[in-house]
């Protein structure tokens, strides 16, 4: 961490850019993964229900 902390006054901008980027990527991952899981479960539930009837 030395390299980042003991530097000049650009730290704020460096952290801001990394926080903006990685919070967006994490949000995108969680959102897409949950949507993928929910739609998969929903479809298999529909198929099961159709097979039962």
């Amino acid at each position: 961490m030395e390299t980042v902390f003991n530097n000049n006054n650009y730290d704020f901008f460096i952290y801001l850019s990394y926080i903006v980027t990685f919070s967006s990527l994490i949000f995108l991952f969680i959102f897409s993964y949950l949507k993928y899981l929910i739609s998969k479960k929903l479809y298999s539930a529909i198929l099961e229900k159709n097979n039962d009837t």
Partner: protein
Amino acid sequence: MIDYFANPSRFVRITNILVPWLIVAVGMLFILGLYLGLLKSPDDVVQGSAVRIMYVHVPSAWLSIFSYLLLAICSLFFIVWRHPLADILSRSIAPVGALFSLLTLLTGSIWGKPMWGTWWVWDARLTSMLILFLLFMGYIALSNAFEKSERGSRPAALLAIAGSINLPVVKFSVDWWSTLHQPASIMRTGGISIDSSMLLPLVIMFLAFQLFFILIIIFRSHSILIERKIQHLKVMGKL
């Protein structure tokens, strides 16, 4: 080969195998990229430590151009062969590409403030990147503008193909016009002008971003494919 992968069931089967491997690879590459980028790479002689913003800004920029190119190719496949998977992939790519182009604009702005003294200038590179973001947004709006979502696929695909004219403008804007944005350092005729200590974290971050993009496209395309199957069941009266 395209025919082989264009079968939706085969596409789902193959991509399902890839998902766990991609998650592991993306996680490892991001950790390595962050370690090298934030802790190991040296400061730039002109930019100082602000050069570290490049490790997230440049991969985002490359990926937004790549994703638009992919969107235009998939749209062309959809227009010519009417393949439903091409439409599903286009719809999966557009929001992700929009996010990466927005990230390019934001991280570029954050870099611009300490380096140029301003958050934004109407520079050719910045403006063409903003147009790329608006083209992604236009595609998303047009493809979802109709009650029956498939009706929006064709006009949105035409917009994506027409908008691809902006891609060379984004890439070559720094050569064609006198801009504040620095010229290319890697993909240029004179060879790479960046030191290997900075090139390595950049390449690793790019690989991480690229695999992350593929992973998200797999998730999104599977979700859309299932939504279409459910819609089909509704139409058939089985729901």
